């Protein structure tokens, strides 16, 4: 199908100029054995009309969160996205631009990232943010590497209450390094602070925590901070950016590096990506930080402008001595996040967080009032995600609810083999009382039948 603009006449003229009689001759320097000769394996394309038909068919074979009532979270949340976000993302000035290596013709992207950095740093109560990482999990991994470099130590303490999939990413990133990863126990749904205290020593590069944690519980960041007595050990928190405008900010609780998954900030679920890795830190660590950082400066006429700065940390300059190999990051997703944050604004984002909490607490109370369902961690506070323990087969309950068009949540057993029949339920501002009441009714109905449905 037409993609290249060349007419036959163009091609002939260009070949004449080059002194060749066919385009094939341009490839005569490829040795015969390295040439691809299985012509029969190559297929022609189809028209745009046919492509869209195919794509609609494939799309229709997937179930969306709108086909259900979604209580599924675990790091990806079904939140409201104002229409203006996609209108701005659809501007080719943003989405077809390259990385801003030529700042004179990239001020739109550069200024926008400066604003993005500001908003993310403010959400976490931190001093500096970078221009993004691939996703929350890789941001956490890069934070761990940054701590190892900064402290020149080799031991990491990771709480068992960090999402196990994300821990797996950290482990994969660190594979090949001489690093000792020590897990901190979980106790009653939160980090076992005494176990942490026992495992901290003067070889510890960093302590890694999630806030609220993978079970939805709000960790006591201050207790962790207080236990880190060695001045060199860094405190890394992977924090929910929406919760962080409602509960105490990790930056205010003494975190040195705060990272997060930014999907909730105006980015569609898209089967897990593209999402957005948020990465913030104390300014004193800037030379060890990974990724691009944008700074404000002036042009030759004294006019305000923005540039990529501290580039001597990066791979295109430092090569094997770079702080990270990251090059392309999640540029356009930072536009989504900054537009979302501007639209929701100071009061709006707080309302998103508070409403989600109140709705989650409402559902929590209704569900745990049912005989057959109890709170997994009854004395622990959560923001908008909580775990309940089903007396009986939680998997069967989940399957039953799916037939009734509810995505009931995540069976924690998949990630925590010891957590049998625990269901992790997330509630966002999108859920209504009617939906939650219907969900509770269906749970009650299932349990009344003794889980035999």
């Amino acid at each position, binding site marked *: 199908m037409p993609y290249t603009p060349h007419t036959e006449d163009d091609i002939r003229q260009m070949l004449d100029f080059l002194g060749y009689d066919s385009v094939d001759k341009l490839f005569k320097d490829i040795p015969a054995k390295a040439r691809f000769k299985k012509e029969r394996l190559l297929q022609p*394309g189809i028209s745009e009309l046919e492509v869209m038909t195919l*794509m609609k068919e494939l799309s229709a074979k997937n179930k969306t969160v709108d086909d259900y009532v979604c209580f599924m979270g675990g790091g990806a949340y079904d939140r409201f996205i104002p229409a203006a976000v996609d209108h701005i993302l659809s501007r080719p000035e943003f989405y077809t631009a390259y990385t801003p290596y030529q700042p004179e013709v990239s001020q739109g992207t550069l200024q926008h990232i400066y604003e993005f950095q500001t908003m993310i740093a403010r959400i976490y109560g931190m001093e500096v943010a970078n221009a993004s990482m691939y996703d929350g999990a890789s941001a956490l991994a890069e934070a761990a590497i940054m701590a190892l470099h900064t402290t020149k130590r080799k031991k990491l303490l990771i709480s068992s209450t960090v999402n196990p999939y994300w821990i797996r990413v950290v482990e994969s990133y660190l594979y090949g390094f001489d690093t000792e990863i020590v897990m901190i126990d979980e106790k009653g749904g939160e980090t076992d602070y005494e176990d942490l205290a026992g495992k901290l020593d003067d070889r510890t590069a960093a302590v890694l925590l999630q806030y609220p944690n993978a079970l939805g519980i709000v960790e006591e960041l201050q207790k962790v901070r207080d236990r880190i007595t060695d001045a060199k050990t860094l405190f890394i928190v992977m924090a929910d950016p929406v919760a962080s405008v409602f509960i105490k900010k990790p930056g*205010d609780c003494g975190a040195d590096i705060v990272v997060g998954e930014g999907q909730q900030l105006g980015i569609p679920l898209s089967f897990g990506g593209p999402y957005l890795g948020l990465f913030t830190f104390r300014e004193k660590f800037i030379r060890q930080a990974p990724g691009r950082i944008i700074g404000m400066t002036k042009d030759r006429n004294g006019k305000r402008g923005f540039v990529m700065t501290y580039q001597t940390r990066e791979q295109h300059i430092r090569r094997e001595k770079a702080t990270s190999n990251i090059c392309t990051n999640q540029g356009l997703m930072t536009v989504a996040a900054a537009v979302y944050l501007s639209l929701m604004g100071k009061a709006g984002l707080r309302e998103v967080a508070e409403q989600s909490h109140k709705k989650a607490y409402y559902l929590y109370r209704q569900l745990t009032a049912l005989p057959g369902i109890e709170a997994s961690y009854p004395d622990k506070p959560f923001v908008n995600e909580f775990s309940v323990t089903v007396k009986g087969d939680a998997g069967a309950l989940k399957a039953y609810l799916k037939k009734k068009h509810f995505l009931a949540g995540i069976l924690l057993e998949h990630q925590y083999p010891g957590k049998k029949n625990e269901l992790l339920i997330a509630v966002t501002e999108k859920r209504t009382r009617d939906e939650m009441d219907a969900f509770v009714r269906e749970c009650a109905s299932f349990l009344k039948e003794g889980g035999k449905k």
Partner: protein
Amino acid sequence: MERLIFEYSEPGRRAVGLPRCDEQMESDPRLNRYVDNRLTPLPEVSEQDVMRHYVSLSTLNYHVDKGMYPLGSCTMKYNPKVNETAARLEGFSHVHPYSADEDIQGLLALMFDLEKELKVITGMDKFTFQPSAGAQGELAGIKIFRKYFDLKGEKRTKIIVPDSAHGTNPATSAMAGFDVITIPSNRQGGVDLSALEEAMTEEVAGLMLTNPNTLGLFDKNILKIAAIVHEKGGLLYYDGANLNACMGLSRPGDMGFDIVHLNLHKTFSTPHGGGGPGSGPIGVKEHLKAFLPVPVVEKKGRRYYLDYSLEKSIGKLHGFFGNIGVVVKAYVYVKKLGTLGLREASRMACLNANYLQKKLRKKYHLEYDRLCKHEFVLSGAKFKKYGVRTLDIAKRMLDYGVHAPTVYFPLIVDEALMIEPTETESKQTLDRFVDIMTAIAEEARKNPDLLHEAPLTTPVSRLDEAAAVKEPDLVYKGDL
């Protein structure tokens, strides 16, 4: 200059409201002591403020839909609009990553089919879409190097990278704990075989290479290179940044590579987004399948599923499955062009590059004067005597309404200008580009100060990068 969004802010202004929350719903009293009663200082603006702000900012950007982007190694080809429309279908964009396999059969079928097409194009045996960009694909590949030798019980501590390689190659090697050996290029711009033979010992895990290389030259010795590396038990990694030169013409799998990464945001027409999101799937040969990050997509009967069972897997590099929204766009491109169309894209990309190379080689300087593939590297060194540097030439190009090429890279060419026109520029556009480059060469001789002052027509003139480091201003500090 456009104001900062923070400078639009007025206390009490709102852009978006939420449905009213049921009065009976209250906060959990257990949470009280964790609540921060202060509001986070974010902007307070109207929707119209936001639109005007971002539309104003957008006008300050150069982009593919505005004009030519001859950025070497970046493959800034046109991004078809149907890609965008298709990726926004709700069956792709509104799917939760923890969905059950039965609810994502369309997505899995798409990934499976795209993998099939990529296998044809690359000659590899199995793919994962998990890496989010080329550099993360490299990371996946190099972790596989590491695990492969660990499981074999071989202690290999080094990786060889040519001096013409992308900066991500050595940076990635370091991220898997390897020491980097840099080997020089030969006089044809390819890998120096004797240097490779000398460096390739049993302490070396392998070689990272792109072919054609960053000079845009196809390395004729590629099969010998592969043999040297394999003879010593090493692995060969293909940096796919330059695949746009040889789709359907020469496959990394047939050249002897064991692992390849592709840049869907270069070769497969998905947009760069001002620096991402990209997608950097990697493909491996049969003997490395079990090392891929999990999960991979498999098919049993008519049912597709996510397979987590790879016993030697390096683990996970992404919280979920990668930048799938980008993968969807690349799929649309591949289906629309077909693999035959992909070959045609590479043929026209190389025709364009050779045409420009021959038109410009006398006006500038061409260090490696031979048939190129999809890109070529000029040198601006001959203008040094007028006090003009490559940077000045690049900045002057902005005044003429084209984006600058990749400059000062690869490092082996003095005052390098690396030009990749891509297949989507017409002969007429290329001719205008030649006129511009000719005019600039003329200006460099006659009016070097004009180039020193350039750019003169852009929203800002040259920026003080040193001041940005000396007095860092990385976030807005005003009150809101």
